[in-house]
């Protein structure tokens, strides 16, 4: 299990290749990458986080995934700070003997990272800035697990 919280951009290809190496007993790798989407003329995004709690919360979520699914490995990288549209905000990767576990665990990680990891997104546009509001559907998404 590898959890990374950093300000710097990450290399999606390099991270995925590195994660995929040396897993002879795993038949499936699923990766998900979240990008900054250019919504309504947004110029940039800024992500604030809670140093210390962020790493603890993500570790707890990843450990829960390991107990629920048969996983060979998990990776979560999540950035904070300023970023431009098109940049990668975060990625998760899961390795499992079979694809069903890898897909489900990746979705579980994403659902929980959305509303249980202490990050807050702010969108900055030509007319000012706004904190992104959490959606009810993101909270509801946790019920299925």
């Amino acid at each position, binding site marked *: 299990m590898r959890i990374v919280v950093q300000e710097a951009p990450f290399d999606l290809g390099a991270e995925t290749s590195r994660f995929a190496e040396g897993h002879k007993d795993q038949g499936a790798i699923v990766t998900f990458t979240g990008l900054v989407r250019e919504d309504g003329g947004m110029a940039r995004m800024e992500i604030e986080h*809670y140093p210390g709690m962020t790493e603890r919360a993500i570790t707890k979520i990843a450990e829960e995934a390991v107990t629920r699914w048969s996983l060979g490995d998990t990776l979560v990288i999540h950035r904070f700070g300023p970023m431009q549209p098109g940049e990668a*905000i*975060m990625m998760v990767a899961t390795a499992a003997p079979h694809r069903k576990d890898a897909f489900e665990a990746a979705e579980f990680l994403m659902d929980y990272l*959305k*509303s*249980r*990891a202490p*990050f807050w997104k702010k969108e900055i546009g030509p007319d000012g800035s706004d*904190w992104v*509001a959490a959606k009810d559907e993101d909270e509801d998404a946790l019920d299925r697990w």
Partner: protein
Amino acid sequence: MDILYFAWVRERIGLPKEKVETGARNVTELVEELKAREPRYAAAFEDISALRVALDQELSDFDASLEGVREVAFFPPMTGG
């Protein structure tokens, strides 16, 4: 105890962190103490259903006890991912 504020809670109160001496037994009592201080606190804590609280970096509830707690954080619902 240390109190931390994040996102728009931090902006409304105007600082990210402060040390507070309090006799509050639970989070709700602490919130009432803070609200009584100044209008900027009252504005930030106007609707606590829009807020979340963490005690020593674990997500918690407003009726939770503060006994032994060293760090309290207030913030809006999280928007990670």
